[in-house]
């Protein structure tokens, strides 16, 4: 599914700024020597302190960024060799939920959720769309515009949008960062259900309590980013 071999990533810094740890081309290395295989059907957590590179790793997974070192493939394709249309095709197989999801504010929620189908040129099955909105508990908000939704509702709407194309992989970047505990667990419950239906899930979070609570319900692999490297978390998680 997603395979990383000795992957590194560095940002170009503005001229004149040469931080420690820069690579041979003058980039400040954020990630280095990362080797990882996302196993199909598995629930993964990615944890680590703020700024450790969790979001960067997720962005690599849907080709929003390209690795600056090593080799990375998604569904058997080298990420660096993908054309722009192939990146679009990849993103139809990878659903993404951000900490602050963005919507098209001029479209009602139902149309926003169905947007991946619209842009893929596929017909929207209204019955399936209603079911999906019901699954995330947003049936009554189908006609609401996104700015009128609460944080938790936006997260659930983003999850519904992420899974409407039935992707193979669901990525969630700090999806509970702005939510209270009850709403966080409600969202995690949806992700668990997705995983149990066969989807591969990768959730980036720094909330260890959330990881522990989720692991009580599903078998999850916890990866920790520390010092730019990736390792399996210890027994405490």
């Amino acid at each position, binding site marked *: 599914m997603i395979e990383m071999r000795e992957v590194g990533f560095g940002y170009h810094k503005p001229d004149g700024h040469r931080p420690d740890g820069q690579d041979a081309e003058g980039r400040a290395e954020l990630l280095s020597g990362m080797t990882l295989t996302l196993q199909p059907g598995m629930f993964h957590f990615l944890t680590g302190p703020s700024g450790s590179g969790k979001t960067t790793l997720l962005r690599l997974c849907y080709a*929003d960024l390209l690795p600056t070192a090593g080799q990375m493939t998604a569904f058997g394709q080298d990420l660096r060799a993908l054309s*722009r249309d192939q990146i*679009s095709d990849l*993103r139809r197989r990878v659903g993404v939920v951000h900490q602050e999801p963005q919507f*098209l504010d001029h479209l009602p929620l139902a*149309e926003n959720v169905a*947007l*991946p189908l*619209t*842009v893929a040129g596929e017909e929207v099955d209204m019955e399936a769309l209603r079911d999906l909105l019901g699954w995330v508990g947003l049936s009554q908000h189908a006609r609401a515009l996104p700015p009128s939704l609460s944080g938790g509702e936006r997260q659930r709407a983003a999850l519904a949008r992420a899974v409407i194309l039935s992707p193979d992989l669901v990525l969630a970047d700090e999806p509970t960062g702005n939510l209270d505990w009850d709403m966080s667990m409600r969202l995690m419950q949806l992700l668990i259900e997705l995983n149990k239906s066969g989807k591969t899930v990768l959730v980036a979070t720094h909330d260890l309590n959330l990881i522990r609570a989720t692991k009580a319900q599903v078998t999850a692999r916890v990866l920790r980013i520390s010092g730019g490297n990736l390792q399996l978390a210890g027994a405490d998680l």
Partner: protein
Amino acid sequence: MRGLNLMALWRGLAGAEGGKGDRIVPPTGFTAQLTLFSAGAMAFLAVFALALALATGRLADRWSQELAGSVTVRVSAPVAEQEAEVQSALSILQTTPGAGQPRLLPQDELAQLLEPWFGPDMPVDALPVPALIDLPVTGDDFDAEGLRLRLEAEAPGAVLDDHTEWRRPLVSAAQRLRVLGIVSLVLIAAASAAMITLAAKAALAANLQVIRVLRLIGARDLTIATAFVRRFTRRAAVGSVIGTLAGMGGIALLPDASAAGGFLTGLGFQGWDWLMPLTIPLVAAGVGFLATRWAALKMLEAVR
């Protein structure tokens, strides 16, 4: 830039506003009005530039043909010898290849020609006015230079004027006016493209967040670009239809200058020329399509 998609252009013009593809782009009231107005104004100006180009083309052709269609022989001689010189010139002209029947202008026609300078009731026969012979040119084998030499030898008082001297600058001026009309059309098309590109870029920049969301959920560049292209193509087409009709109405209301004299011609369209302005909305739609498509694809390159 990827190739011109005529089907997309047609769908852009013919498709209903607010379709699924269009709805992914938020409505933009101000740029919509601006594009409509600009396309309309440019089409209005294009109609007049087209009319100018066509009219000056006609003018150049007409001057060229009418003045090349006849020559004038002027016979100047002492009064006692003039009649003999005229007869001599007429006999030469009657046997000139490629020429029609020569016609000696009678006194009253001469008086009409002189009237603007001397006023009415001028006793022309009291003046030493040269005789004028009008000779129609009917064939390609007419040799003006040969005739000039023959007249010099056999009727020294007769001088051939084939109008070349003053026809050339007139035709040249008319042709330059035609070129100016065509250059104006090209400039109008280029200015329209620039304005639509600017409006499209403004709309794209204002919707950068929308574009990012669309890319994130798997939209291809062409899908996103087409949503903008459809919108701007339609606005350019609708605006230019209005501008073209207004321009054609303005031309139709112009006074008919051709009635003032066969030599001049009106600015308006004649006959099938009236169909030519109808191509302006098609060109405007094409310009809108290409300009927006270029701007959209260019901007999308910056969004991963």
